[in-house]
């Protein structure tokens, strides 16, 4: 009993840094402007108000931002998964001379070794020249470029853990290569696929810098940029920002909750190598 108490205490201590900010954001989004600045802070007892939520949906087009973010993140994740999984499968399975698949994989990963901010100017010029400024397509392309190396690396690890004999057995049983991939390999790496998808989704959903530079109009703006837009010349709209923040967190929460089982299995699947 005593021992258990200690464990819980430790858990609480460990969780405090992650959970406190979330609690803070949620409460701020429900507090009136006056209550937000109360000293000492009103932790539990305050009059809840929905004015900030009303503000972001009816005064500012947050529904639009939400939609934009959703489209960009979903499409980018889907594209990165399809392209990256195909590449990863090839790298894991195709025999190449002199370890060329290792070198190729490393080269792919090396594209993530420069800080992204370094690429922002050339990317801006590129996007401008092809006439994609202020489009969601530009963001999708950039995010796919970002996440693709991760997808390839994660998925390659998962593929390599599937014994080749399983595929060979499927071939002997009369499958085509593609059918063996669909029937045997993909179901076995499904947890890995889920983990990779969540990873991509979070990156694309939260991305701020490139979205800020490449999109400036309300019609294509994504949530993170929209939230930052609540820092106005005259005031910082904490309530609206918090309300938007809560809404931005929700989909990722729900998705992770739904895929939790796969996530844990997927992440550990990659970690344990024989």
């Amino acid at each position, binding site marked *: 009993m005593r021992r258990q108490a200690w464990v819980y205490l430790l858990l609480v201590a460990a969780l405090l840094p992650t959970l406190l900010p979330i609690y803070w954001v949620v409460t701020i989004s429900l507090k009136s402007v006056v209550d937000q600045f109360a000293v000492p802070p009103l932790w539990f007892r305050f009059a809840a108000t929905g004015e900030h939520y009303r503000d972001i949906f009816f005064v500012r087009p947050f529904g639009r931002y939400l939609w934009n973010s959703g489209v960009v993140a979903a499409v980018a994740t889907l594209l990165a998964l399809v392209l990256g999984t195909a590449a990863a499968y090839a790298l894991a399975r195709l025999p190449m001379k002199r370890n060329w698949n290792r070198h190729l994989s490393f080269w792919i990963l090396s594209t993530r070794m420069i800080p992204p901010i370094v690429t922002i100017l050339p990317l801006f010029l590129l996007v401008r020249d092809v006439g994609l400024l202020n489009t969601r397509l530009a963001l999708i392309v950039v995010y796919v470029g970002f996440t693709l190396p991760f997808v390839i690396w994660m998925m390659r690890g998962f593929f390599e853990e599937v014994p080749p004999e399983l595929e*060979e*057995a499927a*071939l*002997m*049983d*009369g*499958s*085509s290569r593609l059918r063996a991939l669909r*029937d045997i390999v993909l179901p076995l790496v499904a947890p890995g696929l889920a983990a990779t998808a969540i990873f991509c989704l979070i990156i694309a959903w939260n991305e701020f810098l490139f979205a800020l530079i490449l999109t400036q109009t309300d019609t294509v703006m994504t949530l993170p940029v929209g939230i930052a837009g609540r820092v106005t010349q005259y005031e910082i709209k904490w309530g609206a920002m918090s309300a938007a923040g809560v809404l931005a967190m929700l989909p990722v929460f729900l998705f992770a909750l739904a895929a939790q089982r796969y996530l844990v299995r997927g992440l550990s699947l990659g970690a344990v190598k024989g």
Partner: protein
Amino acid sequence: MEIRFEHVTKNYGEVVAVADLNLEVQAGELVVLLGPTGCGKTTILRMLAGLEAVTSGEIYLGERVITHLSPRARDFAMVFQSYALYPHMSVAENLAYPLRVRHWRQDQIAATVKQVAARLELTSLLARRPRELSGGERQRVALGRAIIRNPNAFLLDEPLSNIDAKLRLQMRMELKHLQHSLGVTTLYVTHDQAEALTLAHRVAVLQKGVLQQLGEPMAIYHRPANLFVAGFVGSPPMNLVEGSVDFSAAAFTARDLRVPLPEALLTAARQAARVTLGVRPERVRLARQAETGWLAGRVYVCEATGNETLVSFRAGEHRLSARVPGTQRYDFEEAVWFTFDPAHLHLFDAATGQALP
């Protein structure tokens, strides 16, 4: 369907895995590829399966060249050493997979799965996943997945090596019976010579990618074509002693050893300068008392197995073994007398390793 390898070679870069293989497997025959690890036997099987590319030569199925066909077009069924059961499918789904791929009707699949499951005593396990099965059960599922359709041939890659000894003997019998009753051409890979001798219609012994001897099990055992086969087949292996033939005395001589040779062997021995004498342990006679012409030895170790006793003994610098009735026992370092059965001596050319004559 009969299978034919014609001048089939497989290279991995500089390494020759299989060299100029010529092998014909008759329809309905069970041929065992036997050899130590790395002798190329699995490579041969995988080339036949279509999982490994052939460097040169042709493989025929009947009169059809299948050298470059996909595994699916060849229509062989394979049992892998690791069984390669699909872990995310139940036993029933595993069995049904080859039929599903072939677009069988659902009710036909169900009926066939039931039938095969009954035959292999898997009926009560159909809903289980492979990880919930014992080694022997997995083995049976892998077999079932192979026999559920009528393939052109069975390819078995060390199917018994992952199960425990007792079960292995039982499965060996089951396999032999199954192959006989189905009458399907079978290629079977193993490094276990007992498995090879008991199962095969014919055995192909391989070493370093080269076919050493192809023949019926008893021919392999009684007339090994060369030193490698003589030493590899048989447990304990054949006694092999290198020496020369003294034609004036009509005897084989090595240091500390002098064995009279029958006329036929003497004639054959004229072809070689140095020879190796071979004699199977069961053709060594062993006794505590000397008889005329017997040689002296000293027991190194004596192993009783019940129905027979294996005696390893030293004769001068040579270490020899004898297989004697289980009633006989010897002590460490006990002095013994021995002789070889003259009708069952083998001579090999020591330089080339080939059997004489």
